[in-house]
């Protein structure tokens, strides 16, 4: 992290840090602000987090608040839920989304339902962070993008920070939420640098953001696919096509207003989603556009998703399976030629 003094306009001071530093700073800040906050998960303490996002925090806050857990996803996720019910503000870290399947009972049957089953008496202010996504040759069991799947569940919120500012500040907003919030971080972003206002403050997590303005087509995306979409937009700009790129930031709730508003302006849309196409969040978004803005559309919505295959290990095969800038460019050209 380094102080940059002023930003390009010479107005607001900004700081520069990596996504990883932002995540850590967010956790550190939360631990300092609120004594009810603690972090638990596999290897968050002595090891420093399997992506080094919590490195050193155990020395600063001690093993009580940076709590290494046994390899028991269901027990420690459920313990986070119970601790939240008991007045704490736990941050549960599940190493990667694939392991969250071992805690799905707790997330779905308890975190998402207890407020409702109790008739509104007992809320569950737990935050569950996990890594998601492919692209690092980790093969079929370590490359899932299941955030859209979790977004199916009423009772939880699903945040997908893509930019460094969101990595830094979404956590605090999530901790202030009275209900369970799942935060999905794509590990391919951890080394990415970015700037954010030095005088940072909590961001809302229910609104999408337009990351690039354009008039010809709307690209709707989230998390690491944002950067592939922005790269595609650069390529398209060189050809005179102005793409508007929307970062959803939250998959539940979805900010219909922002992306439907953009479609109303551009009349053409492409959804980029690292999940599999069938039953995906991209399917949900396309349906909502159809429901809310059908007559605004000049062409059918296109989707760029992961091929319907468990992720292969071999690099060329994995790349072929995932959304890539070229595929996004092709999809945009298709909707523009329709």
């Amino acid at each position: 992290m380094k102080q940059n003094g002023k930003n390009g306009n010479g107005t607001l001071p900004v700081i520069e840090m990596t996504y990883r530093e932002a995540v850590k700073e967010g956790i550190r800040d939360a631990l300092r602000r609120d004594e009810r906050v603690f972090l638990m998960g596999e290897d968050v303490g002595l090891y420093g987090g399997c992506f080094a996002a919590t490195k050193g925090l155990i020395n600063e806050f001690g093993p009580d608040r940076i709590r290494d857990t046994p390899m028991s996803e269901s027990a420690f996720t459920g313990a986070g839920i119970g601790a939240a019910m008991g007045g704490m503000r736990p941050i549960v870290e599940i190493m990667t989304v694939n392991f969250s399947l071992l805690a799905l009972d707790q997330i779905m049957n308890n975190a998402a339902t207890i407020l409702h089953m109790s008739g509104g008496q007992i809320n569950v202010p737990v935050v569950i962070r996990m890594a998601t996504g492919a692209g690092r040759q980790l093969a079929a069991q370590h490359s899932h993008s299941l955030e859209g799947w979790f977004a199916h569940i009423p009772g939880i919120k699903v945040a997908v920070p893509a930019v460094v500012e969101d990595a830094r500040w979404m956590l605090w907003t999530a901790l202030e939420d009275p209900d369970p919030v799942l935060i999905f971080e794509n590990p391919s972003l951890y080394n990415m640098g970015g700037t954010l206002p030095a005088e940072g403050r909590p961001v809302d997590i229910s609104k999408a953001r337009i990351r690039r303005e354009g008039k010809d087509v709307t690209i709707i995306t989230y998390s690491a696919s944002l950067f592939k979409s922005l790269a595609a937009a650069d390529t398209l700009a060189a050809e005179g096509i102005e793409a508007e790129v929307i970062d959803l930031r939250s998959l539940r709730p979805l900010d219909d207003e922002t992306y439907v508003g953009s479609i109303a302006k551009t009349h053409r849309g492409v959804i980029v989603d690292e999940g599999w196409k069938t039953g995906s969040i991209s399917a949900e978004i396309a349906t909502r556009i159809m429901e809310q803005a059908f007559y605004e559309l000049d062409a059918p919505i296109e989707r760029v998703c992961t091929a319907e295959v468990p992720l292969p290990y071999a690099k060329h095969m994995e790349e072929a399976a995932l959304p890539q800038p070229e595929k996004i460019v092709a999809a945009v050209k298709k909707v523009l030629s329709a």
Partner: protein
Amino acid sequence: MDITMPVDAIEVSDETVPIDRERGLFLLHQMLRIRRFEEKCYELYQAAKIRGFMHLYDGEEAAAVGIISVLNPDDPIVATYREHGHALARGVPMTTCMAEMYGKQEGCARGRGGSMHFFDAERHFYGGNAIVAGGLPVAVGLALADKMQKRPRVTACFFGDGALQEGEFHECMNLAKVWELPVLFIVENNQFAMGVPLEISECVPDLVRKADAYDMAASCVDGMDILKLDAVARRAVAQIRSGAGPYFLEVKTYRFRAHSMFDAEQYRSKEDVANWRQKDPLVSFPAYLKAQGLVTDADIAELERQVAAEVKESVDFAEAGTWEPVEDLERFVYSEVAS
């Protein structure tokens, strides 16, 4: 090499505590409340006033009453889908319990939960969990919150013998012990996981021995004898509250009725059920109290009268209760925060 299990941590608890007339009447009253409430529920189920899954506790009442009566009112309780008895023993009003059975908004979960999901935040009753072993991680978390906030509470976590066949049980026993959390794990061993007898589903049907794998203090107790339950629960709770970590209690009990309202009971004989009925705590305990000269038939008749009146009041309350407006359907998915 001798590989038999060490037995140091394992004991069959036969101790009892001295009992006086007041305590005797209290325990009997609480068990009667549960029994008569559920008998009425059974009747109301036949009359289609109550629907959904309904699991009765008939025969197991001594466990809830014996254990919960030695807890403090703010000790959290986590129970299962067979939780009517635990809720009543904790002091959740019978009126709101019955209204919940009806699905009325005056119910202890506004009619959103039903028979399997009683909740009462004010009375620290955290459900009513219908996933076998699903409540254990929550109980561990409640205990973690207490330990981290230095509150001297004990979380009582009730579950059935089927829960020991779930991974969550083993994860939670380990986690609670590693972190020395103040949890009392209570397995109500009624000897069937739904209809599967322990002999064909457990390689170690002697359930109390499981605790040894986690180096956890443990006892096994006759769940039909409320005085033994009372004694062992007092000792376990005191030990946990003193900071000695979690405790595992096996309560050997039996449910006299079917698993739920959809169970033809093919897996056990009528003779077995009849034999266990001989041990019914609602027969043996009043007989004991009378033999000790602590209560009379007239006392018992008076208790029955009180309980009948309370049950009637609960039915009247539920009948008079109201249906939540359908417009409210999507409430309670997220907290309602004043903006």
